[in-house]
């Protein structure tokens, strides 16, 4: 699976170039006035090192001289990893819109019931128990308000009780 090794090296090279382009906003050279390098120098030159090093990995890989071994992608496991990651992204998007107390229980429900194929008792207890715990730990004890989005009005009476 040298392909993956190469793709990642190319990805890092692109990322380094992007960093370098961003770093040029501040002076990247020697700052004559104060002595020492300018504000953009540190990120610029380190990204340059990354670019060159990733290039070396790519060349090494193309010449077939790599120590890299291993089964990179097994389709079956990859499918479960990707589905969990997509669920995570949907959950985070949902937190901003419908609030943490809608998104997180839905995530747990999906993970335990559909992904993990667990029984209803376990699923239900964790789906309902976790938000209650989070509410008391973060909002009541630590006074850190989790995002509520649309569901904000539902919590107003609860705030009145606990604050």
């Amino acid at each position, binding site marked *: 699976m040298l392909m993956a090794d190469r793709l990642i090296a190319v990805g890092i090279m692109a990322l380094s170039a992007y960093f370098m382009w961003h770093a040029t906003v501040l002076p990247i050279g020697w700052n004559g006035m104060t002595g020492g390098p300018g504000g953009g120098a*540190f990120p610029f030159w380190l990204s340059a090192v990354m670019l060159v090093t990733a290039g070396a990995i790519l060349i090494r890989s193309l010449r077939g001289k790599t120590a890299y071994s291993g089964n990179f992608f097994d389709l079956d496991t990859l499918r479960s990893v990707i589905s969990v990651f997509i669920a995570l992204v949907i959950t985070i998007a949902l937190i901003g819109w419908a609030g943490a107390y809608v998104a997180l229980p839905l995530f747990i429900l999906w993970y335990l019931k559909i992904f993990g194929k667990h029984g209803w008792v376990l699923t239900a207890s964790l789906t309902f128990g976790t938000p209650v715990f989070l509410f008391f730990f973060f909002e009541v004890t630590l006074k850190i308000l989790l995002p509520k989005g649309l569901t904000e009005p539902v919590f107003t009476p609860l705030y009145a009780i606990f604050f």
Partner: protein
Amino acid sequence: MDLLAHLAEGFATSLSPVNLMIVIIGVTAGLFIGAMPGLGSVNGVAIVLPLTFIVPPSSAIILLAAIYYGAMYGGAISSILLGIPGASTAVATTFDGRPMAQQGKAGLALIAAAVASFVGGTISVVLFTLFAAPLADLALAFGPAEEFALVLLAFTTFVGLGGDDVLKTIIMICLGLVLSTVGLDLISGQPRLIFFDQPGFYSGMSFLVLAIGVYGVGEILHTIETSKTAPQVTPARLTFGSLWLGIKEMNKLWRTMSFGSFIGFFVGMLPAAGATPAALMAYGLAKLMSKNPDSFGKGNIEGVAAPETANNAASTGSLLPMLTLGIPGSPTTALLLGGMVMWGLVPGPMLFIEQPDFVWGLISSLYTANLFAVLVNIALIPVFVWALRMPFTVLCAMVLVLCIVGGYAPSQKMHDVWLIAGFGAGGYLLRKADYPLAPLVLAIVLGPLMEKSFRQTLIAEQGNMMAFIERPLSATFIAISAVFFLLPLLKHFRRMTRRNGASERPAE
């Protein structure tokens, strides 16, 4: 005698009911985290760090140190009962721990691991106490030039001793350093690297976001892949008789355990080495010195004791440079360092002068943490046997929820939660392609210090680059760094010449 007075004062802090409770909670949590396959001390600390706002900063550090400690004990539990190391640091424990469990001696192996961990922990904490103050005194003479040289030295140990692909190690160090520069320029205060004009990047990229992403989300994605089949838990029965037998057996192993502790402590101090290689080295040494090395790998109790003393000693060892020099000796201590900075405690020699209560409280808490870890470990063995049957899917779901909420809590910005998801996916892919993650985390924590000390030195010396080698201490550090950096090149050339020599010979 100054030392004893300090330590006594420290115990006054750490033995207060609140701190004692925190230590017990910490080691218990650490034991569970360590026992869960896939989760080690670094994952535990990354996930729990945002939740520690519940206690004051000094107690939070004691809590995290206790988790670190507990996780080192806990790693052995799944190594023995499942044959899967609970954390990478407990890999060597599987070699003899698993065969012992298969021979029906799981209880004995667990006791041996707990006792060995205790011995390793105690010896190393004593060493820690002896070395801490002198090292901090030495570090007081450090200016920015020395600080820069020391950080450079920490990174070059990864290149020279890390054992991973050198090119990939260099990339990870640079990536961590670049990510640490996001936000406002330290010297001029101008914004830089504001990607996509997102205002969230102005406040910089927190080490915590990277750590939760890589060690929380990334680790879980990795666990999903590796834990397809449910592992078989070996039953462990425990009686007072076996406890007594275990302690008696261990009494014969003093030599192995003291070697293990010393190796662990000194190897643990090096940023690139740490608990995993220390445990493997201690195992190798125990086998080498043994009268019947053939019994190793077949359930020799010495093969459990050696790595377990070493990995616990290494965790203490890695705390030493973190606390005295401000340079972490492991990814876990890098997170502790980042946490301390977040709470306004700056690690390094000044801490010993400005916050002696805190420093000695923390050091003495290591003694209590060690004691409680061994007691909780042995008392809760039946609970661990039960907990290890918990399906991975339940664990993974809960950890992911904690990652999201824990990532949101410190800054209260969804921006950080999105970054965590991104770093999770990135960390997972990089890990699959054999990129080491430890240098990345160390670099994002040490990045600001490295850049600041570098530029401060040059400003003070009007841009004279020789400033770094004109001071004896900093010159020494830079010289050692150069050796570490050139080490892989030397190895490469030697291999090349040998290969050439070998290919020429048949032609003769």
